[in-house]
């Protein structure tokens, strides 16, 4: 799917959450959105998914099969059939069990039960035996497992456009490694357009061949990431405030040195 962001502006009070003149994401692109808190990553995703109204501008999409061509996401719902997204817990129906939830989503996207089960088999290692077949409501799962359920729910129907907000959050190291592999393989094998946001630069650089650096709603840099080449540029950008702070830091008095404080004398007198 091709996503075209055109003169997109969104403000919350005086805070600018999106201010993008033009940005194009092509068929099969895998884009990582990075930025500090409040940069506008989630807002951009919500605008793309028509969950938020833009003050100005629009987002248009074109599907691979040509059924949609530069269609404004606010004027049609057809693109939803080709899209999978997980932003936060508000995407989960938490009084269902994971199996029920996946079955529900499968049927919504016209999948047969067998197809849903077959697809879920693909994610079995990611679930680590804790999700499928459990008679447990989603609301009773840990944050990490809810995150897994959310990610898989977005990928279940093999969408042309996959949007995941902070997919590595709450996941244990093994699951993070698995999801990195799953996302890269999904993009490579299906040619789907994948958008993810993350605060974890290492993961983003590892997975995404294209990285957008977002700050105050503006895409500051659109970085081509060939075999981790974006890492240095991103490190330099995000380390700059730390280095500036260190440069202006007041030296601590000598008496505050740790070891001396911790050592208690036998007789304080």
């Amino acid at each position: 799917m091709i996503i075209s962001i055109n003169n997109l502006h969104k403000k919350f009070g005086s805070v600018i959450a999106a201010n993008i003149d033009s940005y194009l994401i092509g068929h099969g692109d895998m884009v990582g959105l990075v930025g500090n808190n409040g940069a506008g990553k989630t807002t951009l995703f919500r605008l793309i998914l028509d969950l938020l109204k833009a003050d100005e501008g629009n987002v248009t999409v074109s599907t691979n099969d040509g059924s949609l061509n530069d269609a404004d996401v606010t004027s049609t719902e057809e693109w939803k059939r080709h899209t999978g997204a997980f932003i936060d817990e508000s995407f989960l129906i938490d009084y269902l069990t994971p199996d029920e939830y996946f079955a529900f989503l499968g049927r919504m996207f016209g999948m047969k039960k067998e197809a849903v089960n077959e697809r879920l088999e693909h994610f079995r290692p990611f679930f680590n035996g804790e999700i499928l077949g459990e008679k447990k409501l989603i609301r009773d799962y840990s944050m990490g497992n809810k995150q897994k359920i959310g990610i898989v729910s977005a990928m279940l129907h093999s969408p042309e456009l996959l949007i995941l907000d902070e997919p590595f959050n709450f996941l244990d190291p093994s699951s993070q490694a698995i999801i990195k592999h799953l996302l890269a393989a999904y993009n490579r094998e299906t040619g789907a357009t994948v958008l993810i946001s993350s605060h974890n630069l290492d993961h983003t650089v590892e997975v995404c061949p294209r990285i957008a650096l977002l700050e105050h709603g503006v895409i500051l840099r659109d970085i081509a990431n060939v075999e981790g080449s974006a890492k240095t540029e991103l490190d330099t950008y995000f380390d700059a405030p730390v280095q500036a702070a260190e440069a202006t830091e007041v030296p601590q008095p000598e008496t505050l040195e740790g070891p001396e404080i911790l050592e208690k004398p036998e007789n304080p007198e």
Partner: protein
Amino acid sequence: MVKCFHRDENKTKSNAESVTPSYTPMNNRFATLLKDIRQQRKLSAKRHPMYKNNKFGKYFMFLFALIWVGYLVLFGFLLPAIFREEVPGMEPYNVLNGGMWYIFIIDFLMRFMGQKLPASEVKPYAVLPVRKRDVLDCHLLLNGIDAYNFIWIFLLLPFGCMTLWKFFGLGGLLGFVLGYLILIIANGYWHSICRTLMNEHILWVLLPIAVYGGIIALMVTTKWPNTIGMEWGEGFIKWEPLAFLAALAVLALLFWLCRVMQLRIVDKEIARTKSTKLKHVRDYKFLDRFGEIGEYLRLEIKLLTRNKVPKVQFRTGLILMIMFSVFLAFTEVYDDNFMRYFIAIYNFSVLGVMVLSQCMMFEGNYLDGLMSRKESILSLLKAKYYLQCAICVVPLLVMIAPVVKGKLSVLDMFAAFFITIGFVFFIMFQLAVYNKSTMNLNEKVMGRNSTSNWFQTMLIMGGFFLPVILIMALNAIFPDGRVSVWITLVIGIAFTLAHPLWLRNVYKRFMKRRYVNMAGFRASRP
């Protein structure tokens, strides 16, 4: 080295003093904590999302309190005359004292509207350097001095002025009010105990029913509670130490019981490792044949059966429905035309109105997910409608008793059925367009967490009363009562048959307002 240690120790101490909250000096600790928690409770009430998103809510609650106070004052002035007329051989204050238990029952029921359980307030302080029991004590004390407890003064004071003053003067009046206040505060702790137990298991609802029911039964059979009430109330009026000691003992006992119970609940809540596995997972396979709507029907059934709030609403509605049917069938209390029709429509509508007045508010919890799928909202609305229509079979069964007893005709019953699923539901579904606050699926139903707003209240009133007003107006025009019922039936059937049209209209209007609604749902999500 030694020198350095001392210097640093002092430094560390002074740093600690500057950052530690002022709870450290023992004598001031509790008072400071009490002050802080009182402030936080005030802010919590003031900044509740219901008021933030709905300015009307604040005024509605104020108006409700004002009406309640007005009622109490009115009864305070009216009851002496009523008691003199009904019980001529007895002073009105003796009659009230004898029936004091009714005040406690009403007070107990009213507390469901707003009293918070202290245990639920303690969790945020669990990791702070404050003792849990101190936080709990603060909340229990604040519950004891809550303004609500003193609302009964508006009944007791005018009543006392009119009945006690001439015999016992100001002293008697003050003793009477003070004694009752002690018992009402104790009743508040009793309410907290029962509510805590009910939260553990719904069957604990039988405890207050047994206690108050037992008192009423004893009043009818032996008159003991009346005698105790009269003696106790007169003891208050005459400032007899024993009467106050007994009241204070009851207060202390219930406070202690409540405290012990709440402490246990707090510990249990903090260290909760509840079993979260379901015993049975029902799939409702028969719904498969209905396609996408069947899928949403399945979702609706699970919504209503797996979450505390809709479950409590359903039970409450069912109890009210059965109660009204029994009253209508076996007593003459509601024999006039207006009440007959009102009860018929109320019984059919109550379950639907309870759920549909919160249309989309439950879904607010996961609306972003629903909105990311094509036209799912229309199917959801249809499923909601069909399920509520199916649920109307329950009142159809419950209403058999009034029909058998001749209080309602079969035609009345079917008119009420169709006007409900046609017209009343048409009105209630309009709320799907305008509701924009998320309702927690497992929080309590009533009180500050309720999300009534101006529009919702008006529509609920409209849903219940418009059909009755219509029937009454038609009755006034057509002397034969059956004509009005037939017209009502036809209107009901017409609205029922037109449901695909008005549901689509609701869907389209919802989609137009989707950004505003979604922002509201997001902002009020727990």
